């Protein structure tokens, strides 16, 4: 198993590549969801205040 993780000596190149990619994939999803949440929250606040007046 450890020989697998060692990637025949290229571990220092392979795993950072994979790690960086996966991290960016996850971050992009979270970022998009955050934007959607913000957009909805803002719209909701505005509509509520507009209805109140």
């Amino acid at each position, binding site marked *: 198993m450890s020989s697998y993780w060692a990637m025949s000596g290229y571990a220092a190149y*392979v795993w950072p590549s994979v790690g960086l990619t996966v991290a960016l994939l996850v971050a992009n999803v979270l970022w998009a969801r955050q934007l959607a949440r913000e957009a*909805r929250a803002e719209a909701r606040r505005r509509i509520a205040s*507009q209805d109140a007046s």
Partner: protein
Amino acid sequence: MNWVWFHRFGSPPYFYSVAGRIVPWLAWPAALLMVAGLYGGLVLAPPDYQQSDAARIMYVHVPAAYVGLMAYVVMAVAAAIGLVWRLKVSHAVAAACAPIGASFTAVCLVTGMLWGQPMWGTWWAWDPRLVSMLVLLFFFLGYLGLRGAIDDTARADRASAVLAVVGVVNVPIVHFSVIWWNSLHQGPSLLRKGGPAMPASMWVPLVLMIFGFTFYFYAVMLMRARAEVMRRERGGQWVREVLNATGDKP
């Protein structure tokens, strides 16, 4: 030619609801394909006879490169449509492409450098393919910078759209640079006359990854575009209806 669907899709409420329905159909296949592709590429595929296990970087490098380029093309096409037909939705799509495309381009560059160090003995070389990919990143950053620097959304849309369209000349340069100039970088090995230059156990995971990344790109892009469309129309009647329909679910 029936243009009705085109105009329908250009209306924000229609786009918002249809895109919302499409996203899961893209996201789940994307996740499955990427898991399968990564497993196939990192575990099942045999080490390359020349590059040994370093070749496994291919499974993230190549799809990231393809999707970075594709993101630019999608962005430029959406921007051009927005310029010509003045469709807000189209501009929102272009704006959504840029950050994702920039991150894929950055992934391609970084993984390429991490691959280059063991293979070529250098992190970076002033090679046409590498430089043109770096220029692609600059175009993405310039697009984002220009969009951020203009306060008025409509003007930001149109100005950045011009830049997106101008920058599209760079895409064929990236792709054909290995053919036009003699390059350090590898030529095409997948889509070439006579079929892929590697065994199926190597190219099948690569193809899975490419499709997975592509689906992923469209899924996240549509998510961003929906948020963008809603942000622009936050006071509008259809937003009110959409929010009432979804209740207080976040």
